[in-house]
């Protein structure tokens, strides 16, 4: 029987599912309901300097009828007095001793102020501390949040102050609003941080009201850039987690954050090295109850894969991430259409012609393959065909498909495998699962990478700017 229990930076966790520091962790009453629903831990809504919030605060991107594909906020840290938050931490820990409570902290950049808040949070019973160096708006203008996270020296200095005082594990929460997330991560590690969490929200403008010309969210006719999160940011978050976890000078126990809402999302973050995962938007959208399937689904997957603990697969996809120059240039796949699954939407056809390499053709019912018939010619032919309403008995009898498949042969595209570059586009646009598969073609060539070609002198070495740290 697999288990979700795990240890994160020395903290014993009943499962890896934590609520991220955000409105779902605003107060003790909420967090206790969340624990009842199955969340293993909660990072308290960031505690610190007093603030005033604006209204409204949120905006979102809907996509093709799906609500909140991306979510944006201009809210600040907790608007409740620190004493109240700390008193409630104590109460939650007393009533839920097995669940993890992390205090998220953000105070002004003074050594004594940080010492004081660390002491009080730990006295209240927090299992660990998360330093919020990521909030992209409002707090950064007062020298906190992202203003710290974006400057590696500040990040290192404050982490150092906290470590002087802390008795519990210290997690540094990284901002994605920086060109190389490994730089602040390395700074935190140098200062002795016990763990990292990533990512916080991404600077964004979600949209503009086209009647009033006011960007959203609107505050008295004006707006301000916000922090973007939700499903849209997951790929960015995964990349940043991988970058940090593949860097020996940065890697630490990682709490993965960004767009997580399902067990699959959680598994992916763990496969790239995360020890726990944090969730905000999905819980704001659907409520705490989503954690049940996250746990249930992850356990079922672990059972299918034969994993007993999270450690059995944590980080297992990291070795499969390479720099581009180390990929095999002699590996080749081509698209294959499974005719019996095809519904004849011809989206792959238009995609390959306009967005790829013009190697999908609608010529199965022509006397010979025809690579010169463009989409415009195909459409014009159809438009010029006269069609009438069929009369039952008279016209409908015998009207059937022009081939052996349920879709007329004339509408099932054909891939020219000689020309196909194996880009994947058609298989991505096809609405039918497993209808277009990418099939391996044996090139008969041994694996060879760009780096090997450079080493062998087949291709010239690139010339970079002197001292570019990215090379």
């Amino acid at each position, binding site marked *: 029987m697999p288990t979700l229990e795990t240890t994160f930076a020395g903290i014993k966790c009943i499962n890896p599912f934590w609520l991220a520091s955000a409105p779902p962790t605003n107060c003790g009453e909420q967090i206790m309901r969340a624990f009842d629903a199955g969340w293993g831990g909660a990072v308290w809504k960031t505690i610190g300097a007093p603030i005033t919030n604006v209204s409204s605060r949120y905006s979102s991107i809907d996509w093709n009828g799906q609500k909140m594909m991306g979510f944006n906020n201009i809210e600040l840290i907790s608007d409740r007095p620190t004493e109240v938050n700390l008193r409630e931490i104590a109460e939650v820990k007393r009533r839920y001793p097995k669940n993890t409570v992390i205090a998220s902290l953000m105070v002004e950049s003074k050594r004594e102020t940080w010492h004081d808040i660390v002491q009080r949070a730990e006295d209240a019973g927090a299992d660990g501390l998360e330093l919020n160096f990521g909030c992209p708006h409002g707090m950064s203008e007062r020298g906190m949040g992202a203003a710290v996270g974006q400057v590696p020296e500040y990040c290192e200095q404050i982490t150092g102050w906290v470590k002087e005082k802390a008795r519990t594990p210290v997690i540094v929460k990284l901002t994605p609003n920086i060109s190389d997330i490994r730089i602040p991560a390395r700074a935190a590690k140098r200062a002795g941080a016990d763990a990292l969490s990533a990512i916080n929200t991404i600077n964004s403008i979600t949209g503009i009201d086209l009647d009033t010309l006011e960007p959203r969210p609107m505050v008295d006719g004006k707006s301000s850039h916000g922090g973007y999160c939700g499903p849209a940011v997951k790929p960015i978050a995964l990349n940043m987690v991988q970058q940090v976890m593949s860097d020996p000078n940065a890697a630490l126990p990682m709490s993965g954050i960004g767009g997580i809402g399902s067990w699959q999302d959680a598994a992916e973050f763990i496969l790239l090295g995360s020890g726990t995962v944090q969730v905000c938007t999905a819980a704001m959208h659907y409520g705490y109850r989503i954690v049940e399937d996250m746990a249930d689904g992850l356990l079922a997957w672990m059972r299918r894969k034969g994993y007993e603990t999270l450690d059995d697969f944590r980080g297992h996809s990291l070795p499969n991430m390479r720099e581009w120059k180390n990929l095999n240039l002699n590996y080749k796949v081509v698209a294959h259409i499974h005719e019996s699954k095809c519904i004849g939407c011809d989206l792959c056809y238009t995609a390959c012609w306009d967005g790829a390499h013009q190697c999908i053709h609608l010529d199965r019912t022509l006397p010979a393959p025809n690579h010169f018939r463009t989409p415009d010619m195909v459409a014009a032919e159809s438009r010029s065909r006269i069609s009438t*309403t069929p009369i039952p008995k008279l016209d409908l009898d015998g009207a059937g498909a022009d081939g052996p498949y349920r879709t007329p042969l004339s509408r099932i595209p054909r891939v020219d495998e000689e020309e196909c570059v194996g880009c994947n586009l058609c298989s991505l646009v096809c609405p039918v699962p497993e209808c277009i598969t990418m099939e391996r073609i044996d090139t008969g060539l041994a694996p060879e990478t760009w780096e090997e070609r450079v080493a062998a002198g087949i291709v010239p070495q690139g010339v970079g700017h002197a001292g570019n740290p990215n090379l």
Partner: protein
Amino acid sequence: MSEQTNFQAQSPGSAEIAARFPDLHPAFDKTAAVTEANRCLYCFDAPCTSACPTHIDVPRFIKKIASDNLEGSAKTILDANILGASCSRACPVEVLCEGACVMHRYNKQPIEIARLQRFAMDALHESGAPLPFSPGKDTGKSVALIGGGPASLACAAELRRRGIRAEIFDARPLPGGLNTYGIAEYKLPLAESLREIDLISQLGVEFHFNTTVDAAQLAALEASHDAVFLGMGLGAIHKLGIAGEEMQGVTNALDYIAGYKSGEITTAPQRVAVIGAGNTAIDAANAAVRLGAQEVHMVYRRGPEQMSAFAFEYEHAKQEGVKFLWHVKPTGLKGAGKVEALELAKLETTSDGSLVPQAGGEFSLPVDLIVLAIGQATHTDFLAGLDSQPSKVKLERGRILVDRATGQTSNPKYFAGGDCTNGGREVVDAVADGKRAGIGIAAWLEVK
């Protein structure tokens, strides 16, 4: 030239009829429309578009609903089909666009194309915006159009957009032909048909009502115009050919349907028999049910497999409570002054496939009203030339022969489309015919 018409205001509608014939397919609200629009895959060279006789670019207008560009959506529809609103309600979409939707092969419900089309058209009508097209620069040419049904309206719109004068002559007091007087009211209310024609008339189409064109007038019109378009549809319903047909209580489906649609008939007697099993017969039978008849029978000499009505229309009639008498044939009418019973004979099929009366299979069905719906005749007599001249155009079994791509008849100055050429199909077929003919006439006038 484009004087403002208001046909809709002349609609003789009745509140009682409106209450008895509510929408069969209610309109979408905005959220539902956008959700449905987003379900469309946006197929390339979409099969739904190919299946539509007017080739409306379906995915294009649907995506414009999803993007909240309703003006653009309505324009996309009207550009291909000037009766886009009527068609969205009247079309038998199960055998047209929705029947061709790829979703059928995906184990999913087809996209509700017609309801989306209606949504876009309703939005245009409600906005009060004008037709999004203007008349072309005057060419000095003119065309006379015989009949003011869908075929002529579509032809006239194409002509006006190309700067050609379009004069419509119709026997009835209001335009639209069967689109106005024939389509079941729960699909397309009479007033809605007129509302759409008010938009078309903004192009400067000229109308002459209560004018039945005869051979003499046709000759005059031919002389005074550069071309003639024949869009006079089909004629009266066939007679049974048995004694007593002139009796009170015997009517035909066209008069019956036009009667209730214009509010002249608002109730039905207890027992009604409809003779025939086509779409028109079904419309008449359903109307009798909704007008309050207790018992409505459809009488057909063959079985359900051979009926010419669409399968979904048959299902609809069953749901309305219509009963069916298969394999029977009317042999006589009984009644003193007013019909009281229909004499019927059961039929059987002989080895050579012909239908013969079954021995001892005679019975009588008590009825208060009999509605004949056994097909429409053609009415092309006025095309026979004056003074024993040959017919103006070549006919085949009463239908006008045309080149399908241009609508041109055997007589180059004459074009034709709609029911009078195809023997009776659907509104959308008439619109497609009229559109092709309008383009065909303009092309012919240019090279002439």
